């Protein structure tokens, strides 16, 4: 069964979001990495890029297929995880930790409140 940490927010497209002040850290969920398996490549947005919630801003590739990653919240890309680009397997081994994708400086601080709660996400994936 997939791990759904209680301190995160979630999206229907299987990203997780950790909000600290006005900064959101984003990755893909344990459930998503389990579905993808064997992540072999991660493409991240340019630092400084303005993103809108729901916009495609990264790509994760498994052996089988390429999947788009969506910005869960709007804002400016503050930092990207170089370690996961170098070692994409981190997405499989530490989806909620070392396998994070990027950080967004929120332009609409109220936005995260509209994301899925852990219980809602658990229900979505049939936990």
């Amino acid at each position: 069964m997939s791990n759904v940490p209680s301190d995160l927010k979630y999206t229907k497209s299987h990203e997780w979001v950790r909000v600290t002040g006005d900064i959101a850290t984003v990755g893909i969920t344990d459930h998503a990495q389990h579905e993808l398996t064997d992540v072999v490549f991660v493409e991240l947005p340019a630092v400084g890029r303005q993103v809108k919630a729901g916009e495609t801003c990264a790509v994760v590739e498994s052996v089988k297929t390429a999947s788009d990653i969506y910005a869960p919240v709007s804002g400016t890309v503050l930092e990207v995880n170089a370690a996961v680009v170098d070692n994409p397997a981190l997405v499989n081994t530490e989806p909620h930790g070392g396998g994070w994708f990027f950080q967004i400086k929120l332009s609409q601080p109220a936005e995260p409140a509209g994301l899925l709660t852990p219980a809602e996400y658990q229900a979505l994936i049939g936990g």
Partner: protein
Amino acid sequence: MTLKRTPLYAAHQKLGGKLIEFGGWEMPVQYTSITDEHLAVRQAAGIFDISHMGEVFVGGAGAEEFLNRTLTNDVRKLTPGQGQYTLMCNERGGVVDDLYVYRMNATDFLLIINASQIDADVPWLEKANSGQAEVRDMSGQLAAVAIQGPAVVKFIDAALPGSACGGAEVQKISELKKNQIGIFIFDYVTVYVGRTGYTGEDGFEIIAPAEKIEAVWNALLKAGQPCGLKPAGLGARDTLRTEMCYPLYGHELDEVTTPIEAGVGFFVALDKGDFTGRAVLAEQKAAGTKKKLVAFKMTGKSAPPRPHYPIQSNGQVVGQVVSGTQSPSLGLGIGLGYVPPELARPDTLIEIEIRGKLAPAIVVTKPIYKR
């Protein structure tokens, strides 16, 4: 459209297989991970459900002549119990399907055809047949598994004991040579076992009545477990065959692509007399083709190449990727694609356009993976 399910559907569910649509069938793409299953086949053994594939029996005094007129390879070269890779072409030399044909005896042949092409092939064969052969599509009654990998030979005889009662005359399955087929008795029914596969590893393909295939699958799983046998899905089947540069119908081959362009001219016997598509294929073999299938490896860190990505050279789009993936054996992106012949030589540098960015690649000799 309702997806068809193989008789092993319940077995896949029990094993936690992830099911996807393939050629109108609901098939397992993977059980644990494509990489794990791929490496199990390269290093030990893997078992695949290939029940979706079609089986057509062609028999009668005129069967040999009929097949030689309809297929590109020469079936006269086959002794009883021997098989060959071959293609079925249209008048323009385009490929209707690629298949395996086995000679069971003087007058009976078994054709193993692609799942996606059953509905095209059977009418094609029936139309080409002017009454000299009997064409019997048994795809609905028969199911099949492929068991592949270097360890398979260690346990195949334990799983399916006994000597052949038809086809190649062998005392046990492991005595079959590459491309040979024998008829064996398993649990009171006849099963066809060929020493063939689609992975580049040693192995066997076993065709059995649909109602018996789960018993075959279970017997193989049980006998192979101590040797590291794993169930493997279509994902691993695709990465394994891509590393070997084996064509997949709908990717490397289609109705407007010829066997010469696809680099499988070796299986076109121009010297055997006339057959459908011969004129075009003979001309292409002599004069060359406008496009050629090449194998390539990515040379830098990049996303894996995927089907339909453009291939570029000197700022021009020169072709298209038809198969592409991350190679689990090599740990880098590999693919197959069509390019003009002047770019088909090994060591030619090309670029693959991946989401608008160019990634460098190099044309390599086939197969991409060499043991």
